[in-house]
């Protein structure tokens, strides 16, 4: 026996709607700040582990695996598509007006990658495609990842 009685009439059952009424301000952090300030100038940087030589993108101040410090290195920001998907649903699982192509892009000169949008026709995209970033106009850049509008075939 779990319960002695239960409500039978469904109109007597209640629910209560609510929202988490907060917003958040995320600082980019030490490495992030360095990257976005460079991006504002149109430059790309990655972080190289001083110990094992692994080059991280997104850059970070530590090597994830040996916990030693890193140093910043310049990269071109261009890369190669490793995988992609054509997303057709929005956050509420309703159809998107225009499908978005997301791609994992291995960046040149790094062991890392970026996940970003591709501006191309879905049927033209292929694994191994060379792509380059398209940035916002210099005066519109805010120091965020969205300063990169999208990647496009190069």
């Amino acid at each position, binding site marked *: 026996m*779990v*319960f002695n009685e*239960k*409500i039978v009439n*469904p109109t007597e*059952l209640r*629910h209560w*709607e*609510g929202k*988490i009424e907060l917003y*958040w301000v*995320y600082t*980019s*952090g030490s490495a*992030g700040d360095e990257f976005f300030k460079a991006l504002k100038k149109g430059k790309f940087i990655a972080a190289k582990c001083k110990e094992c030589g692994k080059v*991280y*993108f*997104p850059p970070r101040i530590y090597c*994830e695996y040996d916990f030693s410090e890193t140093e910043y290195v310049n990269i071109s920001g261009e890369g190669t598509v*490793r*995988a*992609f*998907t*054509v*997303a*057709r*649903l*929005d*956050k*509420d*699982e309703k159809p*998107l007006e225009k499908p*978005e192509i*997301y*791609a*994992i892009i291995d960046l040149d000169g790094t*062991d*890392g*990658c*970026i*996940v*970003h*949008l591709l501006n191309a026709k*879905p049927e033209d995209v292929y*694994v191994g495609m060379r792509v380059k970033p398209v940035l916002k106009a210099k005066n519109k850049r805010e120091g*965020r*990842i*969205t300063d990169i509008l999208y990647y496009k075939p190069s």
Partner: protein
Amino acid sequence: MRVAVVGVGYSGFNANTPDLHWKEIMFEAAVRAYEDAGINPRRDVDSFITCAEDIWEGFAIFDEFVPDQLGAVLKPTCTICGDFLYGLATAYMHITSGLAEVAVVEAHSKASDILTFGEVIKFAMDPIWLRQIGNAHPYYFAALEMAQYINECCITEEQIASVVVKNKNNARLNPSAPYGGKVGIEDVLNSPMVFDPMRKIEIAPRADGAVVFVLANEEIAKKLTDSPVWLKGVGWWSETSNFDTMSFNAMYAAKAAKMAYKMAGITNAAKEVDFAEVDDRFAFKEIQHIEALGLSKRFETATLMVEGYFDRNGELPINVSGGNLGVGNLLEATGGQKALEVVLQLRGEAGKRQLSKAEVGVAQAWRYIPTASGAVAVFGV
């Protein structure tokens, strides 16, 4: 010291539960588990563990709302932010470190309470590098992984479809599976492509439910029951939290399985494991996880899937319960439903879907988008 499962209970699993508060589904599952074990939680249990995440529930400190409905008031009670199988690992450690003789693990899903599911998953993504990009549902992240994986392993659409077909049909024999159905390969291939190469039907829909396990050390287990199910091994592992260092090949499951198998003394999983319940919240994940658990070789799994090797009457049945594709995405209770099915099979209490040979079973769960973490538990009689 050996650790046994001496009682299991569950509530659900349903697509929606408009009549019960999440506390009430936890209570239902707990009462059934204590009844099954023949214990009184107010007197006999030394430690209570709940597996939950704040934002799945819509709370800031969910731990507050845990004790009452488990019978845990003023007793050692805690929350593990992880899947149910992480909770099992914690209970295992509580018992082997002598902190507890009897420990209770609970996990639940009240997914139907969440109105903005896509937004909630997106909230788990790195705010600086990933969350801001695009407007699509975060399912895209799993689709990227799928795209890379099927490309690497040359897996075809039909092979992925056969996972859906198997699980949806298995679920038809499971009275607690809300998403079972007579589905054929054609039906899957006709399902709309929503995140190419992923189809809508390959994404597990959400479900509500709660699972409670009672675990005990060897001495107490033998007093409580003549035929305990042993928790032979448990493992959990995290790859990384960053998309750039993730393997996209379920390394987390492989490493967790290695840890669990070592504890259980299993050297050749493909031979020694009789059946398994693996995470299939996206259809391709099942193939990935079968490989990671060492139940078949890389590049061969998809072929074996089509050949019926993993069917209910196949060599190595996988997801006899219907898996997540049949039962639903149970959030942190996903591993709970899997462990529950394994225990029921080992006890011979699985009803119409009972397997003829069930002596060693494995349950595996992943922590969902956007993580690369997961846990594995090995049970045996």
